[in-house]
């Protein structure tokens, strides 16, 4: 996206979009890779916690233990149907995410970041800038493949032994 001449005033600094768009690929890449790392590490962390509750013969739901919910966690709990139990009457089984579009919530956020990164490119941009933009984009794509692959497996209910811990 070719930067315009408009400037953005913050309390202490004045930035123009050229500066913002130049920073966008690097910032999005660092944040995306950090998010991907946190999604990856949540697997073993949840597995160990789940094993602990099994040993204690306690039945807990994911929502009991994931106390730090973010905006995506709340968005996936939006419901249109007015009736239904206040809470599930029994713990959801692992296949409950089959055919659920919610499994794509985090992958879509990563896709949004990748698209924004590539949008930093513009017609007539210097080669060094393009290398930087596409380098950042490719890094994000590379590490997002695992997240997308596992989301598709959950959606289709396949290859659980290979993708679910």
């Amino acid at each position: 996206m070719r930067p315009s001449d408009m400037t953005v005033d913050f309390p202490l600094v004045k930035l123009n979009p050229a500066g913002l768009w130049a920073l966008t690929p690097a910032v999005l890449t660092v944040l995306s890779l950090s998010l991907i790392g946190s999604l990856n590490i949540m697997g073993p962390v949840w597995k160990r916690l789940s094993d602990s509750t099994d040993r204690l013969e306690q039945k807990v739901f994911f929502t009991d233990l994931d106390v730090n919910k973010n905006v995506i966690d709340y968005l996936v709990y939006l419901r249109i149907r007015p009736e239904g139990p206040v809470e599930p009457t029994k713990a959801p089984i692992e296949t409950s995410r089959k055919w659920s579009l919610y499994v794509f919530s985090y992958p879509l956020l990563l896709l949004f970041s990748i698209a924004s990164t590539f949008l930093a490119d513009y017609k007539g941009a210097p080669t060094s800038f393009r290398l930087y933009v596409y380098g950042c984009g490719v890094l994000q794509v590379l590490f997002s493949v695992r997240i997308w692959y596992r989301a598709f497996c959950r959606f289709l209910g396949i290859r659980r032994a290979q993708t679910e811990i």
Partner: protein
Amino acid sequence: MPDLRNNETQPDSGTDWRLFEIHKASMEAVGKAQGRFVNALLS
């Protein structure tokens, strides 16, 4: 206190609860970090 690194030792209930607290704290830390990354990406 049993050696937790020894798989042949059966931990007692108190140890299980201690391990549960450790794993829960670990999950809370990851969840908190994840929330920050999501908010930063969306803002």
